[in-house]
């Protein structure tokens, strides 16, 4: 081995490296940490995790190609997250912002969450500055538009949503280096939204679908939510919670993990009430943090669900 080949190579392309170590880049960028965190903190969502891993690989390879001078264009990173309520779209968007930041595709990595109200104005001339203000705030990070289909209201042709859409499309195209837009919403309505706004479909490269959680996953989520607040189910309560999840799923306004969080909030309320009424003498930490079966079983879900609200006041008052 002599120095000659290296000298020649250096002459050929003084600024570009000759090879890229993907594994090292993977370690360095901290993508592994984000993916691991995603795996550890998010229950289920296997297809979503798979898609994110693929996206991360694509971006990493793209970055390597750019280092070698093979690619110069910024890839389109705008995404759409579709899925039922409570399936973790916002949480994953937060992780996605972190991921893109670590890979160097967005400079700041903050997430700006908006809905129609934040983008669309009240009167003529109000929408454009409002939308631009939001877009400017999101630059260098990720703009997450929740329930994006509300932007487009075909029934009202004078709706200002169309104006917001036009500005959004323009910035998504011209300022691709500056911000990444994630549209989120229910699958069927998003499909209709994309059909009536073909401009969006063509500008969005990654469509990620969020499946519903299974009952076992929801139970696991419930336990994690409780342990984060230093509560725990006792064994009978755990069984009751499993039954609760199974029957809650069949009822109205089921919102996956969000329904579970609300159920746990109410269970904590009942537990506090129970302790207050029944306890005689001092309580230890275990008693204060145990959710008992009765706290779960008292839920309306076991008595036919939310519809009991609609019954005459005398019955509901029971």
């Amino acid at each position, binding site marked *: 081995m002599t120095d000659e080949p290296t000298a020649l190579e250096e002459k050929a392309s003084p600024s570009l490296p000759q090879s890229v170590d993907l594994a090292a880049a993977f370690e360095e960028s901290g993508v592994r940490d984000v993916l691991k965190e995603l795996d550890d903190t998010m229950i289920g969502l296997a297809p979503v995790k798979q898609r994110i891993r693929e996206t991360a690989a694509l971006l990493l390879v793209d970055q390597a190609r750019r280092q070698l001078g093979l690619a110069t264009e910024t890839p389109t990173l705008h995404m759409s997250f579709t899925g039922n309520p409570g399936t973790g779209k916002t949480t994953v968007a937060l992780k996605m912002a972190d991921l893109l930041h670590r890979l160097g595709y967005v*400079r*700041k990595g903050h997430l700006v969450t908006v809905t129609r109200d934040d983008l669309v104005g009240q009167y003529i001339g109000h929408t454009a*500055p409002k939308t631009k203000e939001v*877009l*400017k705030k999101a*630059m260098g990070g990720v703009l997450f538009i929740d329930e994006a289909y509300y932007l487009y209201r075909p029934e009202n042709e004078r709706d200002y949503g169309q104006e917001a859409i036009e500005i959004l499309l323009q910035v998504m195209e011209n300022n691709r*280096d*500056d911000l990444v837009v994630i549209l989120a919403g229910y699958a069927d309505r998003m499909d209709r939204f994309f059909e009536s706004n073909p401009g969006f479909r063509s500008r969005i490269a990654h469509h990620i679908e969020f499946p519903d959680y299974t009952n076992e996953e929801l139970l696991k989520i419930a336990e994690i939510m409780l342990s984060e607040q230093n509560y725990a189910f006792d064994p009978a309560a755990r069984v009751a919670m499993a039954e609760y999840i199974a029957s809650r799923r069949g009822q109205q306004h089921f919102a996956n993990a969000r329904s579970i969080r609300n159920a746990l909030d109410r269970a904590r309320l009942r537990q506090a009430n129970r302790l207050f009424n029944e306890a005689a003498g001092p309580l230890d930490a275990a008693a204060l943090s145990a959710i008992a079966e009765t706290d779960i079983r008292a839920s309306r879900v076991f008595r036919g669900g939310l519809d009991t609200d609609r019954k005459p006041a005398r019955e509901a008052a029971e």
Partner: protein
Amino acid sequence: MRLRQGQFSFLPDLTDDDIRVQAQYAIDNGWAVSVEFTDDPHPRNTYWEMWGHPMFDNPDAAAVVYEVNECRKAHGGKYIRVMAFDASHGWESIRMSFIVNRPKEEPGFRLVRQESAGRLVRYTVESYATRDPEGARYA
């Protein structure tokens, strides 16, 4: 005559990337960045027209470059500057100010001599551009 006001005025014109880096420095220091324009380049004309509000809550300077370019579209033939205001106690003042856009032709200033009582002469400068009415300057 090239107008020399504010920072970097003896350097070649700043590119968008230069502007972004400078504005990012201001944002990272917690200063509010704003864009202003004028067609009256007199050095004592400190209050230029504001282009939108000062950007208090944008963490990234891409927003500043975006606004500069929007301002260029509307007022490309005038002077545009980027300023950074430091609101912290004891400063409460402009910390940075630099010109990011200038007219193609800068006619410069003329010296005006005013004869006063007892052979006294008062001097002042006047921009050749401001002899045209507002809006009609710089073509």
